[in-house]
């Protein structure tokens, strides 16, 4: 599953595989646009500036979070489309023309005279553009909301990133909201509303990390990202003022892929958070989440040696847990997150699904790891925001004891700035600048040493 809603690989752990190819391929895969963001369609509907719902779009403000949790409704009895001008059509698009520079210190290249494989530092730069998102979202009637998001990569290949309808405030209670379809998990730190756009810094490492099997052997075949939109049903409840939020989801175990391609398994995702006021500093929020999933390890039936979609069995489990805090000191805020992951040993060593049950290699362990994120912002005013993020992933149990203890460890540092020259209730426009660099221990394709990638981007991010 893609990281930013494009159907192409944007995440570095995908790159853990992809980087073993060439940076040229990387460039093709770069820069799709975020799959959820500010929706000027809402701003137009309610006549409110972007800054009401977004501290800096696409990052939500507490008011915007409440609006979202309430089913894209203000609750002022003008939410139903029957109150809108009949010509109103809730559509928004977003795209980002840009210049960017990509560099990888050890990309795989042909050896001398085309013999064997070698590594080289590969750097490229030039003008480009992101993918395109078409957001359609809003209410179908009072307390019935929807979201349909066709999203493309920058070649114009579309897929559906979100497709859901939601029954809001069932029986008049804000604690009873049910969403059905493909949707973003109830992540407080929303990857779909990430403020950074580069290939290296445009996603959350911890949301997509999968451990390497061994030096030179990338992650297992199963694909999962807590930042990926998933398919299922979600119950969500919140207090009227949105200070307390809880949710639970039942999801198909296919990482949001359509057509039931793998198994008949189900996953669960649970999240809860509580906000509180701390004097004049602002609204603080703490919370936690857990994803309990499973994935198949082989196919029950094959045809001509190929697994028949939907017949994956031999499910093995994986878990992701996290604690998050969002701390505000007036115009400065910092989000802190602790992350823990664990994969079943068989699952972590299954490199391809076949028609036979896999046997985990001798000595294989269930890998575990811990992660941390620190993302800070300084919001000068609604028009200018500085962004900094540091993420790390540390393996606590390698798949094999013979692996280097730090194999696959990740560090990523990102700096960004967004300036919105105007704030209106019609469209969004931002000058975006960003630099991000990451290091994966032992992930270079030939020498199995550290892989360092960096991105530099200057672009114009706009939606209407």
């Amino acid at each position, binding site marked *: 599953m893609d990281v930013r809603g494009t159907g192409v690989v944007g995440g570095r752990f995908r790159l853990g595989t992809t980087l073993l190819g060439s940076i040229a391929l990387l460039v093709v895969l770069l820069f799709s646009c975020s799959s959820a963001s500010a929706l000027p369609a809402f701003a137009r509907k309610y*006549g409110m500036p972007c800054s009401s719902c977004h501290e800096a779009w696409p990052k939500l403000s507490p008011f915007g979070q409440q609006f979202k949790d309430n089913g894209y409704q203000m609750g002022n009895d003008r939410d139903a489309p029957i109150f809108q001008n009949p010509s109103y059509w809730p559509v928004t698009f977003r795209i980002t023309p840009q210049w960017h520079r990509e560099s990888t210190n050890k990309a795989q290249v042909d050896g001398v005279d085309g013999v064997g494989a070698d590594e080289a530092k590969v750097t490229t730069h030039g003008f480009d553009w992101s993918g395109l998102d078409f957001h359609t979202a809003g209410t179908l009637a009072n307390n019935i909301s929807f979201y349909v998001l066709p999203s493309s990569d920058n070649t114009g290949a579309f897929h559906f990133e979100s497709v859901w309808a939601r029954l809001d405030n069932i029986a008049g209670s804000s604690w009873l909201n049910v969403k059905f379809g493909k949707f973003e998990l109830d992540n407080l730190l929303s990857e779909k509303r990430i403020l950074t756009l580069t290939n290296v810094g445009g996603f959350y490492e911890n949301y997509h990390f999968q451990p390497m099997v061994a030096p030179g052997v990338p992650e297992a075949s199963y694909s999962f990202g807590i930042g990926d939109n998933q398919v299922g049903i979600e119950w969500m409840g919140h207090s009227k003022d949105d200070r307390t939020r809880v949710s639970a989801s039942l999801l198909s175990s296919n990482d949001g892929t359509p057509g039931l391609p793998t198994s008949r398994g189900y996953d669960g995702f649970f999240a809860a958070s509580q906000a509180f006021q701390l004097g004049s500093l602002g*609204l603080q929020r703490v919370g936690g989440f857990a994803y309990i999933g499973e994935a198949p390890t082989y196919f029950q039936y094959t045809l001509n040696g190929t697994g028949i979609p939907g017949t994956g069995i031999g499910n093995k489990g994986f878990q992701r847990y996290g604690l998050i805090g969002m701390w505000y000191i007036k115009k400065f805020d910092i989000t802190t997150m602790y992350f823990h992951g664990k994969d079943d040993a068989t699952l972590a060593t299954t490199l391809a699904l076949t028609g036979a049950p896999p046997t985990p290699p001798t000595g294989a362990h269930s890998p575990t790891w811990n992660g941390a994120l620190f993302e800070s912002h300084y919001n000068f*005013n609604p028009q200018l925001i500085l962004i900094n993020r540091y993420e790390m992933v540390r393996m606590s149990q390698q798949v094999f004891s013979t692996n280097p203890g730090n194999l696959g460890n990740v560090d990523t540092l990102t700096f960004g700035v967004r300036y919105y*020259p105007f704030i209106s*209730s019609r469209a969004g426009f931002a000058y975006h600048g960003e630099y991000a660099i990451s290091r994966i221990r032992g992930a270079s394709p030939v020498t199995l040493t550290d892989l360092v990638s960096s991105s530099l981007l200057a672009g114009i991010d706009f939606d209407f």
Partner: protein
Amino acid sequence: MRRINFARIAVNVVLAAALPLAAGAQQMESHIGNLTGHSDAGRQLYFRYCWGCHGPHGNGMGENEPWVTPQPRNFVAAVFKCRSTPTGTLPLDSDLFNTLKRGFNFTNMPSWAALTDQNRADLVAFIKTFSPRWKSEKPGDPIQIPPEPTLTIGSIKHGQELFQKLECWKCHGQEGRGDGPSASTLTDSNDQPIRPYDFTSDNRSKCGRTNQDLYKIFMTGVDGTPMPSFADVVKPEDAWDLVHFLRTLQYNNPSPELTMWEGTPEGKAIVAAKRVKQTYTGSGVKP
């Protein structure tokens, strides 16, 4: 190709930072319980949340004003609908604070409950910088709300009589649907058409949901609208009777008053006759 004008961008950045300073140069405070709001902090919030409708100068002429009905509040005039103070006087800080938290139904003004109490107190302080009235006048003394008397059929029936006697029906209609004979002629203080409250709409009134809120509306009036204060013509016990009767007009909104009213043959017949069954429109307003 057009060159990027970095100097212009730099100026824009500076202006953006300075924009909030352009309005409300005077300092104000608000006091709500233990909270003290500060206008300088409220200024930042105003230029994040409010100016699109209320405008940079607080005169209700924001960029959305042409498309917003009713028009956004003009803070320069400092005339406020929902008060606990007598008509014509300034509201208490807590009145504005509660309005921000509650929002106004059937307008574009949402509830700002998601903000912190401090945020709302700061906004109240900043709103007060727009009008010189806040420097030259003090808020009125809040009206006293006597304890609500015991609900009786007699109270409801007396309220029904008062509804006729005070000619509430002229605007609100005999059935409380906001369609009285004068309804179409009403305008607000901006000379904009305004519709009387439809009690049958099953929605909260602008100034709150409780019986106390309804009582306050009679006694303070809704300044800036044709709804006058009845403080000089209605005794407190009469006002409570009127409250009890008005609750029976909310046919689809269960209340002790409606239950008691439907418990009488007269009330049951009236309510049954007025209830309309038709297709649900999805508006949230029950037919």
